[in-house]
């Protein structure tokens, strides 16, 4: 009995450490310590669990911990910062899979459990399965190696999804009423959950991935909470639901930043059809050479960089920082404007620029930078498109109308670094490119920036 009390106390201590860890995550000064605190909490929780009375099969436990630790360390140290969305996706998936397996094992060992335990097992399998395959799909889509990052839609998609959902519900009722007789049905439920995860993510486009990753994060927490109900463990329930809630909040923030509803993101296949709606955009896009761009930048007193996913693709963050430093030494005030949905996951641009050694007092959120843009001399847009399209402010017919944007068109001069005139994720033309104060610098963003740095250095 004393042992049980000790373990429970450990679980309480661990939970408190997790909560303090999450709370201190809200400031850059305390964030790193907060994460370490939370890791200590995890260690306490694991050690306490190992002290549980009657634990056996130590060789397997040690093996599992060792293999998992090795893979975890390898993955965490090798991954590039640009690939962080994929990494978080895979980690989510791995957590979801663990929940699913725990559910399976618990059912296999004790098929004749009480109704409530069986329902919890069913939920752990369902949520864990969807989290696992959904995360794998998100990873595949973000990599864009095997399949396109664009939404994949096919006829009857919604009907098939509804049928699977119905089958899962119906199967769940039968299974829960008499779990011991329905092992095959249990396997079917597991397989259907896995299929549902895939089908739920394929209609969602690459640039909507921030929402998907947040949502899967939430699911992985919920799967943990469901596992908590299966093994009757309060700590799992508390911590799982904490993470579940945090995922929901981030999902919500992302949806707001795109001015789209949650259902629209998940089901509409946004960006799949390239509507060639001929908006009567007046004027012509004006290309500008590196040399001329250099003269403008050289004279600028204030410069704002607007990074987007294109910067991540071109791996241009280090060159951006280098150019930023040159401009600062040249007497200009340099800032970085970050749209909430820039990149493929929340905060993606911030970590890339931090990796490149940009100090965080130079990183500005949308609401902080927009009032300053009016008086900015030069804005350099690097691989961002829809988040700077002024049509979002005034063109009611535009799909992105109402989305909060960075008002870069208000600056005196705008340089857009872009490979071609191709439209952005939403499949719409960007009228910013045709404005009088906008100049296009075509080519690979990294090479263009290097050329600009070269101009500064040659003087």
């Amino acid at each position: 009995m004393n042992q049980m009390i000790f373990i429970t106390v450990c679980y309480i201590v661990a939970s408190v450490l997790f909560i303090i860890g999450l709370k201190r995550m809200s400031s850059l000064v305390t964030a790193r310590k907060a994460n370490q605190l939370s890791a200590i909490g995890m260690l306490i929780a694991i050690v306490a669990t190992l002290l549980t009375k009657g634990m056996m099969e130590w060789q397997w436990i040690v093996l599992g911990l060792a293999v998992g630790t090795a893979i975890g360390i390898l993955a965490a140290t090798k991954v590039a910062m640009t690939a962080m969305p994929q990494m978080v996706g895979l980690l989510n998936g791995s957590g979801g899979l663990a929940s699913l397996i725990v559910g399976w094992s618990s059912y296999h060992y004790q098929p004749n459990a009480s109704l409530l335990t069986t329902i919890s097992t069913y939920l752990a399998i369902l949520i864990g399965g969807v989290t696992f395959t959904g995360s794998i799909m998100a990873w595949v889509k973000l990599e864009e190696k095997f399949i396109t990052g664009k939404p994949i839609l096919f006829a009857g998609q919604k009907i098939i999804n509804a049928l699977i959902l119905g089958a899962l519900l119906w199967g769940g009722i039968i299974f829960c009423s008499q779990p011991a007789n329905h092992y095959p049905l249990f396997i079917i439920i597991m397989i259907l959950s896995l299929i549902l995860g895939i089908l739920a993510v394929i209609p969602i486009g690459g640039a909507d991935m921030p929402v998907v990753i947040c949502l899967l994060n939430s699911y992985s927490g919920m799967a943990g909470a469901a596992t908590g109900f299966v093994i009757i463990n309060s700590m799992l329930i508390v911590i799982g639901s904490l993470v579940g809630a945090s995922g929901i909040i981030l999902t919500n923030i992302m949806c707001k930043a795109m001015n789209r509803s949650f259902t629209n993101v998940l089901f509409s296949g946004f960006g799949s059809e390239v509507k060639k709606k001929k908006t009567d955009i007046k004027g012509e896009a004006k290309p500008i050479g590196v040399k001329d761009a250099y003269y403008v930048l050289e004279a600028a007193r204030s410069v704002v960089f607007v990074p987007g996913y294109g910067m991540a693709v071109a791996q241009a963050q280090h060159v951006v920082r280098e150019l930023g430093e040159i401009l600062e030494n040249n007497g200009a005030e340099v800032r970085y404007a970050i749209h909430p949905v820039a990149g493929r996951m929340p905060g993606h641009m911030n970590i890339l620029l931090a990796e490149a050694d940009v100090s965080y007092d130079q990183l500005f959120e949308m609401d902080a930078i927009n009032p300053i843009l009016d008086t900015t001399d030069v804005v350099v847009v690097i691989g961002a498109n829809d988040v700077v399209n002024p049509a979002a402010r005034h063109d009611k017919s535009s799909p992105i109308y109402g989305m909060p944007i960075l008002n870069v068109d208000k600056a005196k001069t705008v340089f857009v670094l872009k490979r071609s005139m191709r439209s952005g994720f939403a499949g719409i033309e960007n009228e910013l490119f045709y404005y009088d104060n906008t100049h296009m610098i075509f080519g690979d963003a990294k090479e263009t920036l290097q050329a600009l740095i070269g101009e500064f250095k040659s003087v």
Partner: protein
Amino acid sequence: MEMQLDQLSLINLIFLFVIAIFLGVELIAKVPSILHTPLMSGSNAISGITIVGALLSVGLTPGSTLCTILGTLAVIFATINVVGGYLVTDRMLCMFKSKSTKDKK
């Protein structure tokens, strides 16, 4: 793992579940957007708490080979989630520097 969930404990657990969700909302709402990526990977690591269930499902299921295999797999995946999540978060947070700390270097 011979455990049965009865109604009374279910009610208590649901109570915890609901309170924890509200706590989560309060905690996360204040995190600035600059820290959203580390927050996600950090909270992701925390969701690896499933490892507790995984460990118990290896250690407390004597006599069943399938359960041992499944449990070991679950421990592996949950450990990847925990170790990978915390390390990668630390790696990211390490990178954030302010002007003043940079000057000290």
